[in-house]
């Protein structure tokens, strides 16, 4: 009976196993890289907004407190997006002719809200709550980055589960005194942060042992 396979089939079979392995590993690597790239996470991607609102000017330039506009951040899951009324508190008197602000004036006149594009949007299976983070001493900048430097607003952190857990497992690396939560220029040294953070975990009753439970964020 003749040989079914040519002797080169040995090489081919080894080669195809190798190619399959390399392809599998390569695909996994590519998958991993894409999942972490800004294409997927949208980190530092600036969405086009109806008005090029500069946080930099309002926060650093004028010194407005975050809560002047995001009024419900201390007591609600939602930080609060300011209604047109809030913009017009000042812009009914200042920059009243600026073409850039025309959509704001139109919104007030027509009573139609400005259609901002969300910069941070967690999946619907995550039940994030701003108020508890603020009350326990997580600074705005810890998640939102240097908003006071953003001439146009971008998402600073990937906000995937792995990222959430870095803090849920080790909150002492991020907690602040309550008076510093809204302080955008706060920057303690690493040692200061760790010793203060450990103290704050105790003082603010941060339940570290339960903070990685699924039901903390997922219902």
């Amino acid at each position, binding site marked *: 009976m003749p040989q079914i396979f040519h002797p080169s089939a040995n090489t081919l079979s080894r080669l195809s196993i190798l190619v399959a392995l390399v392809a599998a590993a390569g695909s996994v690597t590519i*998958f991993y890289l894409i999942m972490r790239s800004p294409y*997927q996470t*949208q980190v530092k*991607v600036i969405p086009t907004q109806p008005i090029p609102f500069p946080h930099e000017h309002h926060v650093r330039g*004028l010194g407005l407190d975050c*809560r*002047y506009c995001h009024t419900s951040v201390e007591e609600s899951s939602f930080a609060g997006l300011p209604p047109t*009324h809030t913009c017009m508190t000042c812009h009914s008197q200042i920059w009243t002719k600026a073409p850039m602000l025309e959509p704001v004036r139109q919104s007030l006149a027509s009573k139609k809200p400005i259609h901002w594009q969300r910069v941070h949007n967690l999946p619907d299976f995550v039940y994030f709550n701003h108020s508890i983070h603020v009350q326990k001493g997580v600074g705005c900048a810890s998640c939102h980055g240097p908003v006071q430097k953003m001439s146009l607003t971008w*998402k600073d952190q990937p906000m995937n589960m792995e990222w959430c857990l870095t803090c849920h497992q080790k909150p002492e690396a991020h907690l602040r005194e309550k008076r510093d939560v809204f302080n955008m220029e706060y920057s303690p040294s690493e040692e200061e942060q760790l010793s203060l953070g450990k103290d704050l975990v105790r003082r603010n009753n941060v339940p570290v042992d339960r903070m990685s439970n699924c039901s903390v964020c997922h219902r």
Partner: protein
Amino acid sequence: MNRPMGRRPARAGCWAAALALVGLSGCREAMYQQPRYDPLEASTFFDDGLSSRPMLPGVVPHEDPRGAPPSGADEDVFYTGWKSGRLAEEVPFPVDRDLLVRGKERFGIYCTPCHGLSGDGRGVIVRRGFPQPPPYYSPELRKQPIGHFFDVMTRGYGVMYSYASRIKPRDRWAIAAYIRVLQLSQHAEVTTLPEADRAKLPGEGSTGEAAGRKQP
């Protein structure tokens, strides 16, 4: 449903999965985008495009979103600053140090942009062109009953918009009480200060009215 930017929960994943020949099934967005609304999310269901529905006239809240008045406080005074056509002369609940501290904090957030840290009416927004409000320590404003300040915050005054949707009644009272503190701070008699504070003053015998604080 509208898909704002920044929401590509699974599309990239699908591509990658196809490349990787793994996870070929189960790559759907149903969990990411569940059939419920986030706060202020756009809606295609209602004609005005809003998922949050405006309140119908005459709606009675089950639980007052403005916050319940403290026990013993007169409801009319607490929510409006008025009672029987007269502005309230006093805060409708006990004022303590905590309330003043709270008032100072809230004043810093909502009032200082125009009124300035000392209430002189020369805040950063005024320096950028907003009409200047009178200083709190002007004789006219010192004579106003405290309900006046609550009423101004609640309903607005002149070019100042209402802050009723941004500051809850209790905090408005806290700010009103703190405005009294600012008024006193510019008119305190040196002789009424404790010894320790008096020692810190540069001159003797002058009144607490700081030079340059007068209305320009």
